[in-house]
């Protein structure tokens, strides 16, 4: 990956919430026609264990997380003609319906923005070192890795 990313890229790991309007506004520029945003949300119910979730805590590997996300964004820039990328991932304690992650991609043409955003999310899910623990009044449970996330990345193999 020698090609330099010359588009604006913002990657943040933070405890605070993010503002989707503010982030979308940053991605809007004269030469951009399309923005695709992904927002991940804390669910209030664990389908696999049929139990309610009171809260969720996210930890990560500072230093490596940013590096892995940068690698994914670089690959996305090499593959699609896009004009800007923002990735914000929250860590710490979150409640049901809280926002977890924002991936925003701008491009002149919408399909590039759709594909690039989808690609970044799929690889973030399998490569970026974050771990979730779900809490309710009875127990604390580390979320199991989801095999379907591995499957999801296969559609990007050329």
């Amino acid at each position, binding site marked *: 990956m020698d090609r330099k990313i010359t588009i604006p890229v913002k990657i943040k790991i933070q405890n605070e919430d993010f503002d989707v309007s503010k982030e979308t506004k940053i991605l809007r520029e004269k030469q951009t026609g399309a923005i695709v945003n992904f927002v*991940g949300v804390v669910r209030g119910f664990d389908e696999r264990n049929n139990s309610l979730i009171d809260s969720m805590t996210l930890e990560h590997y500072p230093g*490596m997380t940013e590096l892995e996300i940068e690698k994914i964004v670089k690959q996305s820039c090499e593959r699609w003609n896009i004009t800007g990328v923002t990735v914000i*991932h929250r860590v710490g304690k979150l409640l049901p319906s809280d926002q977890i992650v924002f991936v925003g991609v701008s491009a002149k043409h919408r399909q590039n923005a759709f594909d690039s955003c989808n690609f970044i999310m799929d690889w*973030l899910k399998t490569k*970026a070192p*974050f*771990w979730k623990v779900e809490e309710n009044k009875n127990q604390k449970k*580390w979320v199991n890795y989801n095999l379907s996330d591995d499957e999801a990345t296969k559609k990007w193999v050329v």
Partner: protein
Amino acid sequence: MVIKYFSWIREHIGKSEEFIELPDNVKNISELINYLNNLNDNYKKVFVKKDLIKIAVNRTYCSVETKISNNDEIAFFPPVTGG
């Protein structure tokens, strides 16, 4: 060398990181795991689940064959669950 642990691996081992002086006969991750397993049972209980453990050397994914030296930062963690 610094070794970092995350998620349930951190909880099982009882610490988030530790500093060790790498013995001369430990040249790769596989040998490091053997070395740690001999320290106490907490390591054994973790490393027996080898299919559930990802490894990074200097913040880059690697395999058990990856060569290591005393200046490296090693990390053991479960498959990731962010996003």
